[in-house]
């Protein structure tokens, strides 16, 4: 009998062929000099997902995105976008991908509309007959119709960002790659982008959105990947990633030591007493909450409150990537 080759940890994604993934990388690596900007990451973005790509500044998100789009070469690993290997199938794949990469960039002395016309003229898969119509629709979709004739030079940061989104929407897309799409937008603009992303996703467009606005991502993402210092630390559905063993319990009690020893004996990790607030805090881990409650109640300790806290994305992000304000490297 021959041994089966070792399989990687079972993932939801193995159930589908690679065509179920809009983006897949294996061992993707890129170095700049002796610094490894992206270190063997395995990205898996399911079709139809809104994938929040998170990480502190300088962690390698944009480098990864540039490799996905064929702008940078990879030093190791391979990439599939919409089921095709990249960058070898770039010409077939990219017409179906809209991208906003590291902020908008347009010709300063052309109007918003002329800038879109320029990009549309460059797309060999774009129908010249419908060009004006599609440009108008894209401008309307991002609320730039009134400023269409203004020179790009005169645009505010938010208007520039909108024009970048409009460029990504000139053609129907199967995948949108949006690098910091709400950068520079006011609260209304941010809401609109959120709305737009939801709308596009409900039409079946896959959206890969990188951001540092975690609350934003938590509202729109179905999946998240968290990157730090070139490594993909976590990846999965938002629920999976959030559920990951970091839930805490917080017990309000005047009998802290008794509760602490009971919880430790039960097997909870990181049990500590917050004397000032009269609380005992512990990581819940995989234990069922009811079992913990039963254990605590079985002691003579007086319990005034019992709370289970699920961390939000920000807590998780900070716990994974560190507190510091400094860029990663």
């Amino acid at each position: 009998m021959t041994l089966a080759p070792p399989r990687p940890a079972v993932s939801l994604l193995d159930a589908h062929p690679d065509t179920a993934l809009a983006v897949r990388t294996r061992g993707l690596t890129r170095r700049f000099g002796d610094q490894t900007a992206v270190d063997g990451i395995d990205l898996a973005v399911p079709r139809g997902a809104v994938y929040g790509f998170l990480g502190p500044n300088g962690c390698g998100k944009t480098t990864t995105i540039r490799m996905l789009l064929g702008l940078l070469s990879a030093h190791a690993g391979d990439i599939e976008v919409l089921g095709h290997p990249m960058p070898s199938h770039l010409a077939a794949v990219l017409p179906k991908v809209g991208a906003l990469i590291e902020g908008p960039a347009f010709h300063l002395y052309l109007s918003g509309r002329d800038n879109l016309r320029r990009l549309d003229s460059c797309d060999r898969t774009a129908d010249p007959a419908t060009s004006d119509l599609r440009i108008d629709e894209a401008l309307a979709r991002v609320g730039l119709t009134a400023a269409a004739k203004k020179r790009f030079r005169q645009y505010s940061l938010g208007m520039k960002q909108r024009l970048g989104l409009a460029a990504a929407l000139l053609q129907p897309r199967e995948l949108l790659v949006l690098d910091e799409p709400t950068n520079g937008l006011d609260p209304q603009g941010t809401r609109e982008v959120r709305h737009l992303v939801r709308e596009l996703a409900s039409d079946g467009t896959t959206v890969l959105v990188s951001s540092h606005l975690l609350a934003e991502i938590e509202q729109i993402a179905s999946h998240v990947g968290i990157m730090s210092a070139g490594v993909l630390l976590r990846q999965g559905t938002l629920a999976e990633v959030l559920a990951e063993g970091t839930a805490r319990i917080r017990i309000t009690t005047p009998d802290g030591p008794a509760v602490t020893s009971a919880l430790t004996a039960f097997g909870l990790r990181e049990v500590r007493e917050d004397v000032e607030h009269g609380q005992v805090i512990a990581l819940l881990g995989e234990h069922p909450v009811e079992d913990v409650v039963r254990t605590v109640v079985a002691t003579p300790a007086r319990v005034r409150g019992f709370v289970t806290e699920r961390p939000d994305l920000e807590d998780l992000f900070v716990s994974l990537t560190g507190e510091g304000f400094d860029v990663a490297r």
Partner: protein
Amino acid sequence: MSLAEHTLPALPTAARPAYRGAFWRLYRSELRLMLRRRRNLALLAVLAAVPVFIGVAVRVSAPPKGEGPDFIGQVTSNGVFLVFTALTVALPLFLPLVIGVVSGDAIAGEAGNGTLRYLLTVPVTRGRLLAAKALGVATFTALAVLVVALVGLSLGAVLFGLHPVTLLSGDTVSLGNGLVRTAAIAAYVAVALFGLAAGGLFVSTLTENAIGAMATTIGLAVFSALLDAVPQLRSVHGILLTHNWLGFGELLRGQVDRAALLRWSGLHLAYAAVFLSCAWARLTTKDVTS
């Protein structure tokens, strides 16, 4: 929302077909981009000013015999010669300047302001982008020469009248024949300058700094002219980029040495081919980090 909840959309669709004439659409877009830029229009205006200055100066006071640039002595008697004089004056500096700016900017300019990454993700494949840029720069080069020639010819006609052309060899040919020779001269100069323009395009793929690329390209022409002026380097003069630029005078002889003209044009095109190959090799492997 979990994976199970969202409906998987249809499997990947076939690649979208390209529309016919898409390359020409891209090329026209390149031309619009160049010609709508005020800087480039100003450069063309500078070129137009060359024959204007010479024409007006000669009209106001004819130069003493044997002084000034080639052909200037004949301008007063025949406006056609204003074209040749203007080209002679513009070739060492003004034309290389204009071509250096436009070709040096072609890719470095797009890289510098970030539009290159959006062009490449549209996608414009890199080979296609280079072809469109090369054709655009070639068109602008031809346009630059045409501006000098047409402004020279029209102003020459107004100020001095157009007459049958007395060639360098002393024969006189009809005005029609003279104009055909003028057109051939413009074409020769444009081909010669395309060698430099291709060099500019190559330099432009090396950097994100458009100003640097422009200066380097103009430097190429200046450096070549410098080597050309060192007598000790006579053995390599024949293959210098700029050496045969003024060879257009050959077209003003009774017996045109076609073989020499073809040889020189061949050299200019060889320069262009080498530079364009280098540009292709560079651009298609370049990491776009801007």
